């Protein structure tokens, strides 16, 4: 199977020959929390920062790395990467870009005061050494293959702003000086963010003279805005509107779809002898049935993934059999999507000693993933058909993630069965493997989101081996093997991969991205 990348315009864009405006307005589902590119490790912030700032290494629409401010990078020994920088690049204020800016940016990134989620996640364990004005060495303590990947997350700011640059200085525009294709113009929190084209951009002048980002969190309002022509493009088109947009407004609006790197999955309590939300049908306490791999397999078989994709997701999702869509780095090409087999599920349940099923509650957020609460309801229906007595409880993410991660006594996960999602920021399988599958390990920073606490020394060893293998080919194979083992043991039950949809007015095209970024650079005129 090929990578799902078919970004097809479903509309018949009629070129009317009208003069194009040089300005672009984009309606955003989520608003960046700051202009400061190092303040908050959050998708909308990264997306916005890509306009004003460059990174050393870029990620393209399928998260392949490409040279940006760095022209090349390679390991020169086990623990050192050599990065050569692009020459002749100028910041928006006219100053020249060189290694000092890189060193400054990497020092600043993890240390922004009040940061709610710091960039330290990407800079930790790395020491940058300036070799000459256009060469940098990145040193790690142990062999670490993800260096290029992680430095691709850090925006480069000008070192002329120095330590005085606070987040507020970025928001006011004073310090918002980058090398990117657009220059900062204005920022009204909750209102709009304006950037203007940087005609001197090293990669060529951008398509638009001026780009305005307008946060419109309410989905119907966002769709209405693009239909009414108030904005030229929007992201996060709700699945419910896609069919109708295709059908009736095809001449006004074009849709652009691409699979994301986000898998929606179920985590099951695999560490407690008695799980709080798994009971006998009469409500009595029973031994946690989810510890039995046959029960987990039965649950996976009882899920009609195609029905979820078809009816709940309105065909805008891809059934999942593993952690990342095929074609991504480290995804296995051996794994199949678990087929729907209700009889098989009942049989497995009987074998495991639950011929009459048991009582189980699925917990899910209701405002985090596309149609999350509805998926949980559908799962509830499907498990009911396999003979379980199901309860479905959905809650806002503010409450859900805390309880799911550490709601029980001793900071343990509270629930027995949860629905959640994972987006692989690095674009490779090491990301979900490290956080969702690896044994929970506070000290070493593994399994931070392993809310089912599945634990297998063999898989752990595989993951750790992959994470210290610099050779790409060998690492890819190791990651695929680890994924296969995890699916085999049902550490997790994957449901589907999200597909994201953007809409533009007709006459424009959008290049969908797996990392869910919405970029003005991706909008072009036909």
């Amino acid at each position: 199977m090929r990578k799902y990348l078919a970004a097809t315009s479903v509309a018949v864009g009629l070129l009317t020959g009208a003069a194009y405006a040089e300005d672009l307005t984009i309606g955003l589902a989520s608003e960046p929390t700051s202009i400061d590119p190092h303040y908050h490790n959050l998708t909308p912030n990264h997306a916005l920062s890509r306009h004003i700032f460059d990174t050393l290494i870029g990620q393209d629409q399928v998260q392949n790395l490409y040279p940006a401010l760095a022209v090349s990078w390679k390991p020169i020994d086990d623990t050192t990467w050599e990065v050569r920088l692009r020459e002749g690049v100028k910041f928006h204020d006219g100053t020249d870009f060189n290694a000092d800016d890189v060193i400054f940016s990497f020092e600043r990134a993890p240390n922004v005061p009040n940061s709610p989620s710091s960039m330290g996640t990407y800079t930790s364990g790395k020491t940058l050494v300036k070799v000459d004005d256009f060469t940098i060495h990145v040193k790690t303590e142990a062999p670490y293959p993800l260096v290029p990947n992680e430095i691709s997350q850090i925006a480069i700011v000008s070192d002329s702003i120095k330590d005085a640059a606070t987040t507020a200085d970025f928001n006011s525009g004073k310090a918002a000086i980058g090398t990117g294709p657009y220059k900062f113009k204005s920022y009204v929190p909750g209102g709009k963010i304006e950037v203007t084209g940087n005609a001197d951009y090293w990669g060529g002048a951008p398509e638009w003279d001026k780009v305005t980002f307008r946060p419109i969190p309410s989905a119907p309002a966002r769709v209405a805005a693009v239909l009414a022509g108030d904005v030229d493009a929007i992201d996060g088109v709700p699945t419910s509107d896609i069919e109708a947009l295709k059908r009736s407004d095809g001449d006004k609006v074009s849709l652009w779809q691409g699979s994301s790197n986000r898998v929606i999955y179920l985590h099951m309590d695999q560490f407690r002898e008695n799980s709080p939300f798994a009971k006998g049908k009469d409500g009595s306490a029973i031994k946690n049935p989810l510890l039995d791999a046959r029960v987990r397999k039965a649950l996976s078989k009882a899920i009609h993934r195609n029905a979820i994709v078809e009816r709940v997701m309105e065909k805008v999702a891809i059934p999942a059999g593993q952690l990342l869509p095929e074609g991504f780095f480290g995804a296995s090409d051996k794994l199949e999507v678990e087929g729907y087999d209700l009889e098989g599920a009942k049989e497995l349940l009987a074998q495991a000693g639950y011929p009459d099923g048991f009582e189980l509650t699925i917990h899910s957020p209701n405002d985090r993933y596309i149609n999350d609460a509805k998926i949980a309801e559908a799962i509830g229906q499907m498990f009911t058909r396999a003979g379980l007595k199901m309860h479905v409880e959905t809650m806002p993410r503010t409450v859900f993630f805390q309880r799911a991660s550490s709601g029980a006594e001793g900071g343990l996960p509270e629930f027995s069965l949860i629905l959640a999602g994972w987006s692989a920021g690095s674009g490779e399988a090491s990301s979900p493997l490290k956080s969702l599958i690896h044994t929970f390990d506070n000290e070493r920073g593994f399994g931070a989101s392993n809310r089912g606490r599945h634990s297998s020394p063999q898989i752990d060893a595989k993951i750790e081996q992959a994470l210290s293998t610099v050779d790409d080919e060998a690492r890819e194979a190791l990651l695929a093997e680890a994924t296969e083992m995890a699916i085999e043991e049902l550490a997790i039950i994957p449901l589907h991969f999200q597909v994201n949809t953007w809409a533009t007015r007709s006459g424009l095209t959008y290049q969908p991205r797996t990392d869910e970024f919405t970029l003005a650079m991706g909008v072009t005129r036909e």
Partner: protein
Amino acid sequence: MLAFLIRRIGQSAVVVLLMATIVFFGVNLVGDPVHMLVSPEADQAEIARVIQQFGLDRPIVEQYWLFLKGAVQGNLGTSFIFGQPAVGLILERLPATMELAVCALVLAVFFGIPLGVYSGIKPKSRVSQVIMAASIFGFSLPTFWVGIMLIMFFSVQLQLLPSTGRGEVGSFLGIDSSLFTLDGLKHIILPATNLALLKMSMVIRLSRAGTREVMQQDYIKFARAKGLSFGRIVWAHLLKNIMIPVITVLGLEFGSLIAFSVVTESIFAWPGMGKLLIDSVLQLDRPVIVAYLMIVVFLFVAINLVVDVIYSLLDPRVSLTGAKS
């Protein structure tokens, strides 16, 4: 007088403190903002850093004490999400909300009073009955539903008005407002209408009741008998008399307009403080929630205090000792 004032200020301070306590503990006992904030990729060390940075590792009582200490100095905390002082964040959005609320109020009065007066003068006429039914209908309609209907009809179907957001901001006599530009005016029509509907129903009913009462007064009958033109009676006697209660009530209701703007602002993506509140509730930005409620509480208590003082000055029947006769 001074004693009265001091006592009332004291009482108000107690109220503010009480609300601060309730709000602080209420907001701080649910959920966990840390899991909302940190990137899912973050490891346990990063989570620990954020918990410590926001002081969430301290006992709740200590957090409360620190909050009170800051509050006395006018600092209601720093937004978890934006990293800026919460008060500043809210005040930054205040003009947009005020703009919306004032426009809604003007619309409500502008349409509400004529309709109300008409149905008060001719209570039995068919038109009046329609107006009254419509006004009941008006406050039966959920605001959010009306909002989306307005967008559907005027923005999507007719493409007359922009669907969301605030327009260009212009400057006039040193005041910045989107009311001073054409684009801004176009943007405000729908949200202001949406917000105005509820109050319009109220104005209609108030002015109708007022009109009916006034029309039976002797001086109106007298004026009629004197041969004054009907228009003149309405203008000189009727309106003057019903305006006072209408305006008093609307003044008091202004606060509820600001509160209801929460709904309207969410639908129309209006960058005001109501939308900020909802965003903060959904993302558990505790300092902003607490600060918003504290600011509102403070405003209300202050308005009440001022109203009470003015009342006591104007109305000799209200004794300043506080106990009513």
